[in-house]
């Protein structure tokens, strides 16, 4: 009985021994509520590196934190001059692009994560966007994928911020990630990678739930599930607001 228990313990410990260093994570919040007055949110991500053995010698441990919004296909269109005016002509479907993507690192990205590891875990912004099906018939399909990054970076939806994860004593780390006001709903995945010399030695993933709440939730659901009633309600609300306000003004003036 005791022997089998010890054997089980050893088996249990094996994977832990393989990854000598593991992430223990804390989040300031694991859900973001989009209310009527929502104007962005800052998520504090902190944690510790758990180890059973002394700190290994060699290159220091580095930390990369990424938060990705739900991925969806995006149609990218390019304007061209036709008959003197600028119109959309070519379009490319980017198969999957996260609606939000932020990366924070404890050092220069290219130095702390090798290209092969980036390819494997899809950490950098370029790799987080998938455009395998980028049609061959359009010239410069890569320009379209670049455009997604450029436009979303300008809207503060994509960002990479190097040297913003603070690591203390190779054990404690913390960073904060700003989420803008124009967030879409869904499950956002937060990933934490520990690297040494460009190799990922441990990773951890958790979900941050971003949801509309209260009035926002009710209106949004209603507009999708009961569009007829939502339309009628919008009309009634608008008419009574307009009529009420102008009647109030007329009464004021008559006084």
């Amino acid at each position, binding site marked *: 009985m005791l022997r089998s228990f010890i054997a089980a313990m050893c088996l249990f410990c094996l994977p832990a021994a393989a990854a000598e260093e593991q992430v223990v994570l804390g989040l300031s919040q694991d859900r973001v509520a*989009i*209310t*009527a*007055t*929502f*104007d*962005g949110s800052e998520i504090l991500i902190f944690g510790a590196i758990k180890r059973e053995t002394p700190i290994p010698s060699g290159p220091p441990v580095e930390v990369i934190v990424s938060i990705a919004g739900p991925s*969806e*296909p*995006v*149609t*990218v*269109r*390019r*304007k*061209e*001059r036709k008959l*003197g*005016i*600028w*119109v*959309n002509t070519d*379009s490319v*479907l980017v198969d999957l692009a996260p*609606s939000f993507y932020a990366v924070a690192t404890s050092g220069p990205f290219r130095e702390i994560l090798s290209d092969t590891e980036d390819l494997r875990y899809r950490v950098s912004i370029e790799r987080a966007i998938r455009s395998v099906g980028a049609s061959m018939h359009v010239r410069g399909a890569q*320009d*379209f994928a670049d*455009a*997604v990054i*450029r*436009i*979303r970076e300008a809207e503060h939806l994509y960002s990479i911020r190097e040297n913003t994860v603070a690591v203390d004593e190779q054990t404690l780390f913390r960073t904060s990630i700003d989420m803008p*006001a*124009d967030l*879409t709903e869904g499950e956002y995945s937060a990933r934490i990678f520990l690297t040494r010399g460009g190799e990922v030695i441990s990773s951890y993933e958790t979900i941050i739930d971003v949801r*509309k709440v209260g*009035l*926002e939730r009710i*209106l*949004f659901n209603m*507009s*999708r599930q009961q*569009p*007829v009633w*939502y*339309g*009628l*309600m*919008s*009309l009634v*609300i*608008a*008419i009574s*607001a*307009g*009529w009420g*306000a*102008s*009647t109030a*003004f007329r009464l004021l003036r008559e006084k």
Partner: protein
Amino acid sequence: MQIYLPIAEVSVNAFLLLGLGGMVGVLSGMFGVGGGFLMTPLLFFIGIPPAVAVATEANQIVASSFSGVLAHFRRKTVDLRMGTVLLIGGLIGAALGVVVFNYLKSLGQVDLLVTLCYVVFLGIIGSLMFIESLRALRKAKKGGAAPAKRRQRGWVHAMPFKMRFRTSGLYISVIPPALVGLCVGVLSAIMGVGGGFIMVPAMIYLLGMPTKVVVGTSLFQIIFVTAFTTMLHATTNYTVDVVLAVLLLVGGVIGAQIGTVIGARMPAEQLRVLLAALVLAVCGKLALDLLLEPAELYSLVSGGGH
């Protein structure tokens, strides 16, 4: 104060929206126009998705025209029969317009369509208004402006299906008013406007309706057509944002009250020149957007909208 719009999914400043509503309200009170043709482009400029701007503006127009039409009913200046004919045309037009709108949206050309419609219509109406009001101003300066001659009764009166419109004192075919209604319906669905700025001149110059019933009758048609457009957009595109509509409306109603007072103190000819200049300015800005090379050649649309 930032406010998150549930359908547009953008966060905007509530006071900016109230201010925009108020500003357009002042203008609509001054000039007696709906203001949809100004509000919709302004909403594009502040970053509301065009589809949401058009649908929501239709909703707002219903509300802002409602108290106006009540006042006209009290004064008995609504030609219900003419209004109904215009309305039937309008409903068919609006349905056609939404079909075209959704088709072009799937092609990625809806922004182009909306902008082109604005440039063409604002350009035509603005220049006509500008020329005519300048002429009126010059005449007024010379003194003793001759009353404008009634248009010759031509092809409009040669058509079949004649009907008597007692309130307007007309006996004409139903085809021209139905066609006018149809055009306005299409524009209402595509441009997010009431269409008063097209319908009013058409009613006066084309149908020969007396001026005193024109505004009430056009408002009557506009209410039902824009309500129908709102419902179509709400059920096919899910793009009506009621929070946005209410904010614009509150600003608009207050602005309209101020505008009416200002408008009553200014001479009519100068007001018309101002309105014409404003229409041309909006037209010019939109035309420049089409003609100049945009800073960003690419644009994104979520989903596989091929």
